């Protein structure tokens, strides 16, 4: 039988479609965190004092450094996309490496933050935390849950960028076809945006 192919075949390359799909996916991610922000705001409203006291336990300096690190990584990944568009593959690859490096720095700092708190017995089930007011326990539950989930997204984002590097090496992603890089960058910006909300909610509000 002759192979009849429709003009609007689903197997055509369609950059618009992949970008649309990515944006829709980012929407669902935002809503996922949106549910948590909702829970956070309701409990903050119900236990304002306890949340405030609990938040003094967080290290604002480390949090600020992490914010700067993530913002910088967002900048590098955006430049990497632009470099690819302009045909400078070498620079693009370097900038992706830089982004992954910043992701690792972020995770290492996060690791030290968490372990310092766990040393003080501030982890669900530990003695120190059990003595706190119920509201403060909720604060720490949400703290671990939300930053933990965000940390997971950082790891996933880093891995995706790693795949982008492989794709570039195999020439599947190139200056004429860079949707994969662009979508990975979009995902990375989402990780960044969520942190920008988490940081003031947990560290800064007084």
């Amino acid at each position: 039988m002759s192979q009849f192919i429709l003009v609007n075949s689903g197997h055509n390359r369609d950059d618009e479609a992949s970008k649309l799909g990515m944006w829709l996916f980012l929407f669902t991610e935002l809503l996922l965190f949106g549910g948590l922000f909702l829970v956070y705001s309701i409990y903050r409203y119900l236990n304002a004092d306890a949340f405030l006291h609990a938040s003094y336990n967080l290290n604002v300096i480390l949090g600020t450094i992490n914010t700067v690190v993530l913002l910088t990584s967002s900048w590098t990944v955006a430049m990497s996309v632009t470099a690819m568009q302009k045909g400078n593959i070498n620079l693009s690859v370097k900038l992706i490496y830089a982004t992954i490096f910043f992701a690792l720095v972020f995770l290492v700092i996060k690791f030290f933050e968490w372990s310092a708190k766990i040393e003080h017995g501030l982890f669900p089930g530990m003695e120190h935390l059990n003595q706190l007011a119920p509201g403060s326990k909720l604060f720490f539950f949400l703290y671990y849950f939300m930053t933990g989930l965000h940390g997971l997204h950082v790891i996933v984002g880093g891995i995706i960028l790693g795949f982008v590097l492989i794709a570039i090496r195999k020439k599947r992603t190139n200056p004429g076809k860079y949707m994969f890089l662009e979508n990975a960058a979009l995902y990375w910006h989402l990780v960044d945006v969520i942190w920008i909300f988490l940081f003031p909610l947990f560290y800064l509000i007084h």
Partner: protein
Amino acid sequence: MAVALGVLMRLELIAPGKTIMEAKTYNQVFTLHGVIMIFLFLIPSVPAVFGNFFLPIMIGTDDVAFPKVNLMSWWLYVIGGLFALSTLIVGNGAADTGWTFYAPYSVRTGTNVTLAVLAAFILGFSSILTGLNFIVTIHRLRSPKMGWFQMPLFSWALYATAWIQLLATPIIGITLLMIVAERVFGLGLFDPSLGGDPILYQHLFWIYSHPAVYIMVLPAMGLISEMIPTFAKRTIFGYKAIAYSSLAIAFIGYFVWGHHMFTSGMSGPARVIFSILTFLVAVPSAIKVFNWVATLYKGSILIKTPLLFSLAFIFQFLIGGLTGLVIGALATDVHLHDTYFVVGHFHYVMFGGAGFGFFGALHYWFPKMFGRMYFEKTAQTSFTFMFVGFNMLYFPMLILGIMGMPRRYYDYLPEFTTLNVISTVGSWILATGIIIMVVNLILSARKGEKAPENPWGGTTLEWQTASPPSQHNFDREPVISVNGPYHHS
């Protein structure tokens, strides 16, 4: 599987007192019945089975926008299904919380809630990906000659559904993750004795789970909108009204979740608002029903099994919808909350509506999917069994509920016996009907007559290609009617 559980439950309720199982077993059985039916059957059935097959054909293309994402969604579905079923053998027995997983009980019970909840989470993810795929497919891959209002109504229904899947499912995802985290770390996010708020859980749960019932019923409504014009040999009445009402149901459906919680503690004004919004959903639903009936009027009607299922859909959906208004009204809800009336209402909409729509479409598209006709007579017999059995099974529940029989108990007072027996006998008739149908369809797929391209005289694009369609769906350019998708010449 879930049907068997349902029949077992009815068997337990055939007589007062303990009949075949303990209270705890009964709790586990109705939980698993709910989880399987909702997350494994009702939510994915129509979009996954018919959507993936017919959406691309109906809008004149050869595949969905992201075939690989689709495959991933399928595997997530399999993994989620395995998780749900494995609760039967792994850990301390299957969950006994009801499919709603209400906190704080779901946080404290010793049964294997964690795995069941994870299953629901994974299945939700699969549902999101399907929805995302459909939205992009409809936007990007629609035939260039097909405008939005030349799309078949099934695609409209799937489009509206896809948005609900996309926007509502993440909320349940995160809520269920919180339940898992609570159980693992022993903290009380929703446990009042540890400072949490169980009502908040209910809110988060229903923010998804109410829109979810529209995920279940909207695609089925789309199926009815396909079958009725084909068998009435008339263009559909009120095409745009039906298309818009799908979107309206999807939109209003987001704002009615509070009506599940009228008795769990909510301020007066909030209750009134939720009640009014609930009544508003009835408007687009009624628009659809009126349009379907108007389409049949003065049509030259061809009575075949799919049409019978569609008519049963309209009849049962009407009962389901009207009883929905009864429990959507504040005063009556206080009396009927958590009674069998709710169970009856829910099954009338979900099974009598979504389930029957699904079965109808199974017959409607059977020739197209398998290339063979099903045996019409046997199909009509199975339909009769199902229709009679269904109404015998669920109508007594409505009466029992008004009389005050609470739901989710394995036992009841002696005065409820007669109606419970009727209901249980109904479940046997219904199950017989389903078995006949399944056997008939399997036999037809092997031995049925070869199906022509267009056995029903349908006008949508899937009838312009071979049965079953070739790998690329179309071997020639499909002709898109300028007079809309249901123009019978």
